[in-house]
């Protein structure tokens, strides 16, 4: 019985918090909103790669850090709290996807060295989420085939050299490699609420070979769960940051000759967010551990974490905005950036209702 972070994990978390405070700020995000899209400078990508973050949860014999998935989640949590863009999460997930698919080791090495961006394309313009909603069907032709259709909301698609596209093959869903410069590929930028890059990936008779079929439906589900839990971590870090920022403000800001944090209407709202953050952190650790152990409850716990964190992220940011009063409603304060990121992430890879429905199907399954 040992349910706490290792010294190493605590150190990595602190390192990332410090790194973000030094290298990234809300100003970068405000610029991204004014001159879309928000982009991480190449030198910063290299620094992150040099710190070993992109491959932190990849096996050591593949050049990774050999840390459990939770360590990736902690990095994303700290980065999310610092308003860092999704590129970090996207690359962490892409690296795990390549590892799960048993992809070429040189390719994985390039990815974790920060030399390539691989985006993952799952959602389609059908108003649904998740691997079960995929309709894009490959036209088979001998060993390979063709893809025609549209994927939307693809994170970091503006910067990607390669896409992993979820599509239906005759024997079920699969992840298929599509190069950004392949014939028939068109990339249309979509503006995310928080100024980040998401794209529509339009494909017209895009050719793929047998070798480009990287993973099956089971791997797709695993990738989806890993990605979902990392977005949950981003939302948790975001809420934690807003809570800290707002608590600090409530200690300083004086009205009626007292700090506003001495009023219970303010203090209790912050206390409630502290409670929800602690529950969220517990769910995040539980979900990561369950995924690592391939527990039968893993999918339900991932959905529990995502659903909880969706609600928490938005609730915390809205409370932060309110409790800052007038200044909270300004462009210059970072609160609206946190709210934008929370609102976007809360509908990325499944909203709360979607994930509660996944939990409910677990509760109704014969195994429960």
């Amino acid at each position, binding site marked *: *019985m*040992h*349910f*706490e*972070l*290792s010294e190493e994990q605590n150190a990595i978390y602190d390192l990332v918090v410090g790194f973000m405070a030094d290298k990234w700020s809300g100003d970068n995000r405000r610029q991204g909103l004014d001159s879309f899209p928000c982009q991480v400078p190449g030198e910063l990508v290299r620094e992150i790669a040099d710190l070993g973050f992109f491959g932190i949860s990849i096996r050591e014999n593949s050049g990774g850090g050999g840390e*459990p998935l*939770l360590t990736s989640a902690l990095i994303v949590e700290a980065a999310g709290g610092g308003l860092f863009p999704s590129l970090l999460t996207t690359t962490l997930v892409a690296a795990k996807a390549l590892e799960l698919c048993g992809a070429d080791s040189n390719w994985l090495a390039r990815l974790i060295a920060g030399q390539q961006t691989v985006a993952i394309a799952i959602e389609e313009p059908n108003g649904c989420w998740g691997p079960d909603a995929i309709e894009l069907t490959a036209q088979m032709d001998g060993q390979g085939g063709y893809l025609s259709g549209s994927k939307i909301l693809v994170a970091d698609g503006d910067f990607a050299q390669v896409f992993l596209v979820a599509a239906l093959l005759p024997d079920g869903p699969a992840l298929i490699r599509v190069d950004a410069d392949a014939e028939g590929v068109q990339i249309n930028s979509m503006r995310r609420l928080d100024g980040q890059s998401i794209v529509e990936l339009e494909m017209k008779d895009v050719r793929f070979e047998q070798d480009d079929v990287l993973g099956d439906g089971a791997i797709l589900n695993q990738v989806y769960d890993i990605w979902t839990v990392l977005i949950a971590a981003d939302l948790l870090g975001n809420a934690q940051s807003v809570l800290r920022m707002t*608590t600090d403000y*409530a*200690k300083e800001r004086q009205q009626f000759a*007292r*700090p506003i*944090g*001495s*009023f*219970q209407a303010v*203090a*209790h709202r*912050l*206390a*409630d967010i*502290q*409670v929800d953050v*602690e*529950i*969220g*952190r*517990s*769910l995040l*650790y*539980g979900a990561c*551990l369950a995924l690592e152990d391939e527990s039968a409850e893993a999918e*339900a*716990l991932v959905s*529990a974490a995502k*659903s*909880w964190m969706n609600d928490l992220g938005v609730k915390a940011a809205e409370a932060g905005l309110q409790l800052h009063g007038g200044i909270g409603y300004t462009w210059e304060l970072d609160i609206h950036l946190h709210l934008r990121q929370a609102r976007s992430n809360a509908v990325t890879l499944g909203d709360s*209702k979607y994930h*509660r*429905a996944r*939990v*409910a199907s677990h*509760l*109704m399954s014969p195994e429960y």
Partner: protein
Amino acid sequence: MDLKFSPQDEQYRERLRAWLDVNLKQHQAVSKAGDVDPVQAARDWQKTLCEGGYLGLSWPREYGGQEASLTQQVVVSEELARSGAPAPINTIGISILGPTLIQHGSEEQKQRYLPKILNGEELWCQGFSEPGAGSDLASLQTRAIEDGDHFVVNGQKVWTSLGMIADWCFLLVRTNPDAPKREGISYLLCNMKTPGITVRPLRNAGGGSHFCEMFFDDVRIPRENLVGEVNGGWRIARSTLDNERSGLSGVISIENNLDRLLNLSISLNRGKQRAIDSDSVQQQLAQLWIEKEGLKYLGFRNLSDQIANRLPGPAASVGKLFASRLRQKIGKAGFDIAGPLAQVGKKSPHSIARGRLQATYFDSLGYSIGGGTSEIMQNIIAEKVLGLPRSYED
């Protein structure tokens, strides 16, 4: 990171399960027979638990304890809750007074009281709250005046669970009315048979009589029944309150309530479909399960802290506050899911789950009041965890 118990702990669990299989069935058979006094049956069950070695797990052996590891304590609370075994009747004595005496009692007091707390020979109640001292407990007014080798106590206590049947009471009294309020309080042990004590049952909102009010009229308590120093009782009581809040076993009882609700929603029809087939019921049950899991993993984090000798401190208020809210959500969900029949009483035709939903609902409402109200938990979190300035004059 892992949630596994050691092979030794798992063997211990197996032995406990086998033990429960025999002894719990026996107890249930005796209780069902009907002509047994329920209090006596509860005392007997506690004695059985005690003799089996499943009470006082953290206590020193010399006072009847087991000196068991923290993980064994968790195994016992898990298995007792899972089996549906009744809690020992002397829970207040075991979980609050026992640890207090172990920490602050004299050697004579430990030897005199601790073994009988465990075997149920002496039942204890807690005399803390007063009509004028609830959340602001330190403002209590019950007076004790030193008179030779006795304290003479006058005043009133309230919300006293087991007051009608308890043999003893641990009591907070004011011994110095002129000192600042936290520095004039003493901690006494009072035999309930002492002349001058009147106990009256109070019915709670759910209709039960689980608590009482107690009147003290020139009650003489021997000086040897003082715990710690005169006027040093507040600090001792604080450690008692922390014991009350850091309990872990609540998650399993919440899990049991939720499982019952899930089964109800499968067995109940709403129109042409089962309740569980409704999207809103699924969403509601899923949310409750999510919160229950959050509480469970928070419990694992707290447990790991305790294993590493880090005290939960004010963070225990997080679990207390969240657990009581979750219990209330489950209580209310029972009414949502049962629909029109939720209002039907337990002995009526068409009543659901023999009135259990209604009992669960009313029970749940007490959790955000007893042991520190939710509003006080919010104050503690705001002040002690977040470091916000205090919201009131003290």
